[in-house]
């Protein structure tokens, strides 16, 4: 019965604290099918798939898997053998080798035979394409290799369902193509694939069926040929109640569709920052050091920095922010020696979750003379007034300025960070993956803040692995590879081949 669904999820509901994540969701998956699940962040895609994979229990709902019924609620739910969930963050343990990760996923008795596990990986890699050393620690592999390894491990487990969460977010073009091939081969052998993404163009190319989710519900499901990108975007964003936001329906749709928000400028303005031959050590394992990087930033422009994750983007951001002392090269800049910095990892680098909004937003301005008496004690009233107006200006939705940062949603946290960083009219702004994890509305608000900063004369460096994001708001895009800038493209340039070569270091 090839047309019978392999997976049937029925009436799945889930609530976190007071937030409804899923509300009566039905979902079908057939053998040999590539089924895309689209929707903005927070729509409930990942939650649904975690429940399918048995990582989380549902409040209501049941699952029919290959004809076998099971309850998804309470302790009845458990780790599901047949489903392999490849998450965005990566489910492999970076310190262990591929073979060891395989052994953890597919135990083979009391003895852990690393050599045999390594052979299994090599064989699978030959079958589906791409070579991986199974005995290297995972952290020494490139991002694309890691992802492929994780998919191979899922296959080695004998799972019939492969779930991929935003798999191309961190990949270069070549690697994305290779990934597409593996997915096709897996489906051709009868496997089923769920492909979570918000990149609508990609989804239409790759998927057989597309299901759209919004706010915990399924709002549409289509065969791939029967639907346009515009239709999908409208379903994803939904109807906006005018009062709810200052951002209009049209703008949200533009963001969802990736319409360009700026014109390409050709005019040279004042140079804000000139980096020449920069050499600097990487701040994290798995990130590249800078090996002679050149970059100019001018007033009023947004420079997009593209490239495969791990090409030295974090190093560049932290050098510009003044956190890493360069080992060589030069950096000449206007004004102060540091930049407004919106880090990629918000919880680790940008906010203190346990501290109040006031404490978090005072990070730079606590030095202002007007807020303190003799620079020693705070003037409570002025500080409070300032923070409240800053929060309001940044469109942060909050209950009380004394509540801890933890109580805010990700989008509001990010808006607070952006507001704080941009408040003192900086000359240089560094935004590393600023839209990561945000929904369309928050993206459009953060985007507007960055555009405004550029319009006010700042030079903005926006780093993102997502080329579509950069195309929306960057005036020009430079491509990074292994600690260097290897080329520059115009945002209008659709030459995918050249871009892929640049990102892969073939320049």
């Amino acid at each position, binding site marked *: 019965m090839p047309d019978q669904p392999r997976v049937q999820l029925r009436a799945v509901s889930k609530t976190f604290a007071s937030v409804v994540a899923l509300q009566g969701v039905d979902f079908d998956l057939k053998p040999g099918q590539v089924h895309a699940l689209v929707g903005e962040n927070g729509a409930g895609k990942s939650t649904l798939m975690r429940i399918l994979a048995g990582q989380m229990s549902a409040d209501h709902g049941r699952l029919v898997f290959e004809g076998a019924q099971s309850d998804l609620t309470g302790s009845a739910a458990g*780790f599901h053998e047949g489903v392999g969930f490849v998450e965005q963050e990566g*489910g492999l343990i970076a310190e*262990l080798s591929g073979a060891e990760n395989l*052994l953890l996923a597919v135990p083979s008795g*009391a003895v852990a035979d690393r050599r045999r596990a390594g052979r299994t990986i090599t064989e699978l890699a030959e079958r589906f394409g791409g070579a991986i050393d199974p005995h290297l620690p995972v952290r020494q592999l490139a991002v694309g290799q890691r992802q492929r390894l994780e998919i191979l491990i899922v296959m080695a487990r004998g799972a019939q369902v492969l779930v991929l969460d935003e798999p191309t977010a961190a990949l270069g073009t070549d690697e994305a193509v290779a990934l597409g091939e593996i997915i096709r081969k897996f489906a051709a052998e009868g496997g089923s694939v769920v492909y979570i993404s918000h990149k609508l163009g990609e989804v239409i190319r790759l998927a057989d069926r597309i299901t759209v989710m919004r706010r915990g519900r399924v709002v549409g499901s289509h065969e791939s040929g029967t639907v346009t990108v515009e239709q999908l975007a409208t379903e994803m964003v939904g109807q906006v109640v005018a009062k709810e936001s200052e951002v209009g329906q049209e703008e949200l749709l533009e963001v969802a569709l990736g319409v360009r928000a700026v014109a390409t400028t050709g005019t040279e303005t004042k140079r804000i920052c000139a980096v020449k031959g920069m050499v600097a050590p990487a701040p994290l394992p798995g990130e590249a050091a800078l090996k002679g990087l050149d970059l100019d930033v001018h007033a009023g422009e947004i420079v997009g920095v593209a490239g495969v994750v791990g090409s030295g983007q974090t190093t560049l951001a932290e050098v510009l922010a003044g956190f890493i002392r360069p080992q060589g090269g030069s950096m000449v800049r206007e004004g102060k020696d540091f930049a407004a910095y919106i880090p990629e990892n918000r919880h680790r680098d940008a906010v203190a979750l346990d501290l109040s909004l006031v404490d978090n937003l005072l990070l730079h301005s606590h030095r202002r003379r007007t807020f303190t008496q003799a620079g020693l004690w705070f003037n409570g009233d002025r500080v409070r007034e300032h923070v409240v107006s800053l929060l309001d200006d940044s469109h942060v939705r909050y209950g009380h300025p004394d509540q801890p940062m933890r109580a805010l949603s990700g989008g509001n946290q990010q808006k607070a960070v952006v507001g704080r960083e941009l408040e003192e009219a900086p000359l240089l702004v560094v935004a590393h993956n600023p839209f990561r994890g945000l929904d369309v509305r928050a993206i459009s608000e953060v985007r507007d803040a960055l555009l405004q900063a550029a319009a006010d004369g700042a030079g903005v460096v926006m780093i993102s692995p997502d080329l579509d994001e950069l195309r929306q708001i960057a005036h020009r895009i430079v491509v990074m590879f292994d600690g260097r800038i290897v080329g520059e493209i115009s945002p209008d340039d659709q030459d995918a081949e050249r871009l892929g070569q640049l990102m892969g270091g073939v320049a």
Partner: protein
Amino acid sequence: METFEAVMNSSVRLMIPLLLAALGELISERAGVMNIGLEGYMTAGAFTAFAVAVGGWGLAPAILLAAVAASLVAGVMAIGAVWLRGNAILVGFALFVMLPGLANFLYVQQNNQGATPKLHLISIPGLDDIPLIGRALFAQNVFYWMAIVLCVVVYLLFSRTQAGLTVTATGHEPETVRKRGRSPRMVQTMALLACGALAGLGGASLSLGAVGSYQPNIVDGRGLIVIAIVILGRWSVPGAVAGAFLIALLDALKLRVTQGSDIPVQLLGALPWVVVILMLVASTRMHSHAPRTLTQ
């Protein structure tokens, strides 16, 4: 040459308690639990072994019960830090303070100050005649041979078995272990119990082997030294052996040096601790096998 032989011999003897406890701490740290309370486990082992042996129950039960008693203490750590999610550092510190206090209290209160039966040397005929190192390596008490066997067992545990791999994985990423359908808490509990048993043996080797009795504060900070040994040994068995031997060698030399010169013995008491600090500084340069949950 005679001096060398004597120093080797006493180094190996002094190494035994450190090595046994280090094997235990190695397992628990690999599982992602830092045990400040190791001192407490060792004390529990030392006192139990002493009490049972002096009570006339025989040496084998003394050793066995030492391991059991220390495991029970480790069980308190498991309940407090793993199951009830208490602060692991403070729970460990509480045990660090409480158990030496409890053992000293019971010792003083019971007023039972006999000596334990002497342990026989077990030697391998032929090999113990090797000049210089023969007696040190092949004629030692039962704890030495236990330590040798346990070193091999723990080494194989981590290099060859699924259980060892799961323990390592738990130390790096408990969440991934959970997603694979196994309970990280259970893994950590088992690792702690094993750690307790090994540390208990280490304690017993102090009271039964090295001292031949109990004395207040018998462990005297060795639990802390062991933690440093494990860190410097990069969470590996050969590293633990090397670290334990290094500290023991310093101890042995200390005894020698003070006999033959006027360097004050009190000042040399600080030496192992200075070495421990230097070891920790040196170990920050190498993070290869460090369990991720402990380095964050």
